[in-house]
């Protein structure tokens, strides 16, 4: 696992660009509804596995980039990403030791927190959206985590 903390910057940049592109790629409506928050998964992965390469500031910048793409209010994703990255970073040594199913649960909690913060900010700023479908990406994101972390682990251990 220690090798992961040497994750190259190149992967960080490539992954976050890919995350941004995937977050805006046109998909059929059904897939669009369940589209996981790829950029947030990148942020969580780096906060847990390689916090020195992609820490808080990276999370904040990624959130701001997402805001530029699709934010209702500038700064909402930035705030939610920073809070999630803080928690992931704070408990990263513990989370790394968890089995995959356990990790998925932690990621589920983090994604839920992110979505809840957005829900809250949207409500305060008058963009409230109470459709239950907004919570779907939380489930798909958590379900994707084992594949995600396996892929990233493979990529970093190769390099």
């Amino acid at each position, binding site marked *: 696992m220690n090798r992961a903390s*040497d994750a190259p910057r190149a992967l960080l940049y490539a992954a976050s660009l890919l995350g941004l*592109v995937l977050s805006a790629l*046109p998909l059929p409506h059904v897939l669009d509804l369940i589209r996981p928050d790829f950029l947030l998964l990148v942020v969580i992965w780096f906060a847990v596995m390689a916090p020195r390469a992609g820490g808080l500031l990276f999370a904040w910048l990624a959130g701001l980039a997402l805001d*530029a*793409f699709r934010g209702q209010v500038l700064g909402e994703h*930035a705030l939610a990403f*920073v809070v999630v990255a803080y928690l992931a970073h704070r408990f990263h040594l513990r989370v790394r030791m968890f089995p995959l199913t356990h990790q998925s649960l932690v990621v589920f909690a983090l994604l839920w927190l992110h979505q809840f913060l957005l829900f809250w900010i949207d409500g305060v700023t008058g963009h409230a*959206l109470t459709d239950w479908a907004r919570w779907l990406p939380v489930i798909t994101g958590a379900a994707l985590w084992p594949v995600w972390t396996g892929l990233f682990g493979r990529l970093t251990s190769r390099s």
Partner: protein
Amino acid sequence: MPALREPGARYAPPRVSALGLRTLVLCAISIGIMVFDHRQHELPVIRAGLSAAAWPLQVLVNSPFAGWDWLSSSFATRSRLLAENESLRATARENDLRLLRLEGTEQENLRLRELLNAAPRDAESTKLATILRLDLDPLRHRVLIDRGSRDGVVRGLAVLDGHGVFGQTSNVGLLASEVILLSDPTHAVPVQVERNGLRTVAVGTGDPRRLTLPYLPRNADVRVDDLLVSSGLGGVFPAGLPVARITEVRRDPSQSLATVNADPAAALDRDREVLVLWVKPRVPLPASEPPAAPTGPAAPADKPRAKDRKP
């Protein structure tokens, strides 16, 4: 962010207090940005910069689709092009005829308004904008168009398509801006029933084929197939633009309000190109001057840069 040490360095966890402090600082900055953006509605420098930075990526996402369009149009067969040409020419003829009548009516309208001492109608100018193929949010009906503050777009401009009202601009960047569609669940447009002038509000439902009119009493005079036009209240949409056609009126005796649904006139989920509309109050004509002949909107003088089209 601590720099990545040389590859062989031992991993040393950073001190937690520093982590918490940095989190707090970043959170405070985010909240500051949010408050400022939400209250002032304009963070011109930051928004413009961010949107300009996001632009290449947005174009990148859009490019395969644009490329496919280009390919399919350059390999279109001759017969199809001919057929398309023919039908377009027919439509153009029809439109020319309609335009002739419209110009006459417009002059007449101007004269009548002058007789009535009424304020002249507002001048309008439009610009064509292309919708970028990006998914912004599945639950919000927003699209990104390729016109930004560089083209004079500001918050709260009406956006139309060939059939009616499409939406309004919200977050404006330098090169692109976001348009809220009529069908967005947080969007509402002041409308009027064309048949009898009844005023109400049409609210989006999250379904691109359905608006709802939640504030009509049970005995309100609305019928299926009534046309709803914008009433001009609220100041975003000029009066008289087609908005939707009523598809369903249900009057439940136990409810004090009727359930009324309408089908938007604009093809909200199929459009690729839309018109952004600028409305400027027209300066009242001096009394001595006869109503000037040019019937085209008096806008070109207002926006010399704009490639204006007649609305």
